[in-house]
C-alpha cells in the first residue's frame, strides 16, 4: 500500500475478523476545491495589483502562472512520476508567486522563480502536501538572491490616477516627495510616479543611517516648511497606504483587498483567524517596543526605546500602522503564512507560528537591510512547523490536563 493513496486493504480486516467501514457520505469540499477557492481569494490582491501597476503586472502574473503549470507538467513527464492533484496547486503557486514579485521584473525573473518554486520548493519534497517551505516564497527568495539588482531597485513605480490599469509602469518620473497621489495627474511623457518604498524610507530610523530628527512633527502649520525632516512626513498618507497606491510588490500594497480576501478564507474555514491576528499583533507589538534611532545633535544617533510612547498617541498609531503596512506583512499574514501544508495545523501552534513570523518580520524590517523581510520570516518559521505541530496538541477527550506530566 502506498503512503500517498489507499484505503485499508481488505486482508487486514479479515485477519482479526473486523469489518470497519467509513461513512458513506462526505463533505463536498475536496482538495481541488480548497486550492481553487484559495486561488480565487488570492486573485483579488492580484487584480488590485494589476490595476495599480498596469499591464506589466499582468504580464508578470501570466508568466508566473504559465511557467509554474508548464514546469510542473514537464517535471512529472521527465521524472515519469504520476502527477498528483492535477495542476490546481501549480496555478495557486503561480498566483502566490506573482503577488510577491515587483511589477517591473524582466520576463526571465518570473520564469526562474517559478522553476525554483516548483522544483526546489515542491517537487523534490514529493509534491503537494509534502513540502516544508512555502514553494512560492522559495521561488521569491531565489529571485531575490539571483537577481538582486533587478529585484531591488531604489525607486519603484505606481501608476498615476489617470493611467490606472492601462499605464506602463516602466515609464515613470521620480518624485521624491509626493504625498498627493489623489487628485494629481500623470507627469508629462510618463504614466507612473516613481519613488522609494515606504520600508526603505523608514530605514532612515536605523542606527547606521539615523537621518530623521523625529518620528513626526506636530508644529503649528505656519512653521511646517522650516522644520527638519521627520520620518512619517516622507511617507504617503495613511489612506493611500491602505488603498495600496504606493510602490511595492504586485500583491502586497493593497491592504484593504488583502484583508477582505483573507476574511473570505477565514469564513470558508481555510484559514484560522488566530494566525493573521497573531502575525499582525506581534508585529505591532515589536514595532511599538523596539528602539528606533533618531539623529540627535552633533550627529550622534539617539536610541529611543518604545517609540510609541515617544510622541503623542496619534503619532504612535500612525507609526505602527506604517510599519505594519510596509514590507508585505499583511500579505504574509493572510496568504503566504496561512497556506496549508507549510503551517502548523492546530490553533495553538499557529499562534506561536504567527507570533514568530510577525516579530521576526518586524525585526528584519527594522534592523536588517533586506528587500523581503516578511517573506524571509515566513520561510524561517516554516522550518519550525513540524516542531510546533508536535509541541502543541489539544487535550484528548477523557484525559486530564497535563496528564503527560503526572506520575503514572
Amino acid at each position: 500500500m502506498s503512503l500517498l493513496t489507499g484505503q485499508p486493504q481488505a486482508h487486514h480486516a479479515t485477519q482479526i475478523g473486523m469489518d470497519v467501514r467509513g461513512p458513506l457520505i462526505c463533505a463536498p469540499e475536496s482538495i481541488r476545491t480548497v486550492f481553487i477557492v484559495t486561488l480565487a481569494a488570492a486573485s483579488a490582491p492580484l487584480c488590485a495589483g494589476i490595476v495599480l501597476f498596469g499591464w506589466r503586472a499582468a504580464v508578470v502574473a501570466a508568466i508566473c502562472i504559465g511557467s509554474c503549470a508548464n514546469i510542473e507538467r514537464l517535471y512529472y513527464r521527465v521524472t515519469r512520476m504520476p502527477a498528483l492533484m492535477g495542476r490546481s496547486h501549480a496555478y495557486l503557486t503561480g498566483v502566490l508567486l506573482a503577488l510577491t514579485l515587483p511589477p517591473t521584473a524582466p520576463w526571465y525573473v518570473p520564469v526562474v522563480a517559478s522553476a525554483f518554486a516548483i522544483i526546489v520548493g515542491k517537487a523534490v519534497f514529493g509534491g503537494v502536501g509534502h513540502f516544508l517551505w512555502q514553494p512560492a516564497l522559495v521561488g521569491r527568495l531565489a529571485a531575490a538572491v539571483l537577481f538582486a539588482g533587478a529585484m531591488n531597485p531604489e525607486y519603484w513605480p505606481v501608476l498615476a490616477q489617470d493611467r490606472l490599469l492601462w499605464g506602463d509602469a516602466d515609464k515613470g518620473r521620480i518624485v521624491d516627495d509626493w504625498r498627493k497621489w489623489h487628485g494629481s495627474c500623470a507627469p508629462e511623457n510618463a504614466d507612473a510616479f516613481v519613488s522609494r518604498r515606504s520600508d526603505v524610507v523608514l530605514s532612515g530610523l536605523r542606527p547606521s543611517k539615523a537621518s530623521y530628527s523625529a518620528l513626526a512633527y506636530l508644529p503649528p502649520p505656519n512653521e511646517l516648511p522650516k522644520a527638519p525632516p521627520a520620518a512619517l512626513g516622507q511617507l504617503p498618507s495613511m489612506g493611500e497606504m491602505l488603498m495600496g497606491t504606493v510602490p511595492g510588490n504586485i500583491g502586497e500594497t493593497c491592504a484593504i483587498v488583502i484583508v477582505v480576501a483573507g476574511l473570505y478564507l477565514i469564513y470558508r474555514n481555510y484559514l484560522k483567524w488566530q494566525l493573521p491576528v497573531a502575525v499582525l499583533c506581534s508585529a505591532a507589538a515589536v514595532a511599538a517596543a523596539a528602539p528606533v534611532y533618531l539623529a540627535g545633535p552633533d550627529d550622534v544617533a539617539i536610541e529611543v526605546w518604545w517609540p510609541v510612547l515617544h510622541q503623542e498617541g496619534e503619532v504612535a498609531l500612525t507609526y505602527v500602522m506604517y510599519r505594519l503596512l510596509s514590507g508585505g506583512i499583511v500579505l504574509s499574514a493572510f496568504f503566504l503564512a496561512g497556506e496549508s501544508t507549510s503551517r502548523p495545523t492546530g490553533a495553538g501552534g499557529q499562534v506561536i507560528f504567527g507570533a514568530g513570523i510577525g516579530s521576526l518580520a518586524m525585526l528584519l524590517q527594522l534592523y536588517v537591510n533586506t528587500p523581503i523581510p516578511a517573506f524571509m520570516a515566513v520561510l524561517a518559521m516554516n522550518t519550525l512547523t513540524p516542531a510546533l505541530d508536535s509541541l502543541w496538541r489539544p487535550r484528548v477527550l477523557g484525559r486530564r490536563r497535563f496528564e503527560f506530566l503526572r506520575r503514572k
Partner: protein
Amino acid sequence: MLLRQYGSFAGGIDLPDEKHSTLGMPIEPAARQGVLRVPLAPCAGPPARMLVPEGTRVSAGERIAAACGGVDVYAPCEGRIGKTVDVQVVSAVGVKHSPAIELVAVGQMAPIRLLVPVFDWRAASSREIRTSLAGGGLTTAKGHIEPLNIWVERGLRACCKCIIANVVEPQPYVTSDHRMLVENGAEVIRGLMIIAKALEVGQMLLAVDQRRVDQYRGLVGAARACNVAMVALPAKYPAGNDTLLVKVLHRRETPIGKETFDVGAAVIDASTCFAAYRWVACQSPQTARVVTVSGQGTMPRGNFWTPYGADCQSMLQEARGTMVIGGPMAPSYQADNAVVCAATDAVLNLKTPPATTATPCIRCGWCTDHCPARLNVKGISDAYELGKIDRARRLHAGACIECGVCSYVCPARLGLCERVVWIKRLLQQRPQQVRPQELHPEAPP
C-alpha cells in the same frame, strides 16, 4: 422552561439533516414477509437453546428458545418453525454471524397497541424489577449490545448516579427513536423509570434534539409525573454519542478505554425503554422494533414496526445502491443476509459513492479541528500506514468515539475513520500482543 439547555463539546460538524421525508410519518406495521429468520444470538453471548422442534406451529409471543448466556427468543408472529440458518446481525464491532430459526410466517404483523399493565411496577422493589428484566428477550440497542439484565448488573456494580435516555439521533435519515418518542412517549418514559429503578438511580434525563423540541410538548406531563428532566441538545453531529452526552449532561469525561458506567452515568436508548416497559408492566416480550426505511432514491419510505428476523434487503424492495444498516456515518454496516435485530434502527439505501482515489494529505487540520475527541487523527493514520502500533497508542487512539467526522470532512478523501477505529479495536482486543506486521504487512519487524 420546558427544556433545559446545556453546553456543548469541542469539535463536531453540521450534518445535513435529511430526515424530512420520514420525520412526520407515523409508525406502521411492516409489510408481511413470508419467512422470518429470527436470530438466536442477537447480542453478546452464546446462542439460545431451541425449545420447539422443527415443524411446530407457534403463536405470536411464544418463547421458542431459552437463553444460555444470551437472551430468550420469542416468536414475533404466528407461524411454523423451519430449519436453522445463518444470518448477520449488528454487533459492537460491525456485523456478526448468528444462527437463526426460520419462521414461516402465517400471521400479519400487528400494529403497536396500548397494553393494559398487569404488574404494579411502581410498587415493586428494585430486586423484583431486575428479576423481571432477565426475561422478555430484552437487549440494549446501542453500543455494546448485550442482555439488558447484564447491563443493569454492570450499572449496579458501578453505582451510577444518573441515567440518560438518548433520543438525540444525530445521524441523517434515522427517525425511528423520534417517532417512538412522539407516538409512545409516555411508555418510553415509564420504561426509563423502570430501568432507573432497577439501577437504583435517582436522576433521570431524557436527551432530545433541539430541532424536534416542539414535537415533544405532549410528553411534558408524563415526564413530570415520572420526575424525568427533558434536555434539548444543540443540533451538532455527533451530539448523540454516549460519551459526549455524558460529557455534556453529566460533566464527566469518560477515561480512555472505560465506559460511561465508570463515571457514574448510564446511557440507554428509547426502544429499549419501550421494550422494558412492555415486558415488565404488560408481560409482552420484545419481538419487534421500529425501523426507519429511507435514503436516496426510490423505496417505500417510512417508520415500520418490524419483527425481529425480517430481511433487511427485502425491506428496501428494488432500490439500487448500497444498503446500510444504521446511519450513513461511521461505522456503517453493510451485509447481504442481514436481518432486523434490536440494534437495527434504520435500513437505508444510499448512493454508492464513486470510487475516488485518495489524494495526499495537505495538512489542512480539519480532522483534528472537528474531532470531538480532539485526536491527532492524521498522526494515528500515519502510524497505521507505518505499522507503528505503539505510536498509535501514545496518540490515544483508544479515545476515538467512532463518529466518522474525520472521514467526512477530509478533503483528501483519506479513510481516516476506518484506520483509527481499526487500531482502536485492535488495541481493545489484544492490548499487549500486537505485532507491527499485523497492522501492516510491509512494516519493519
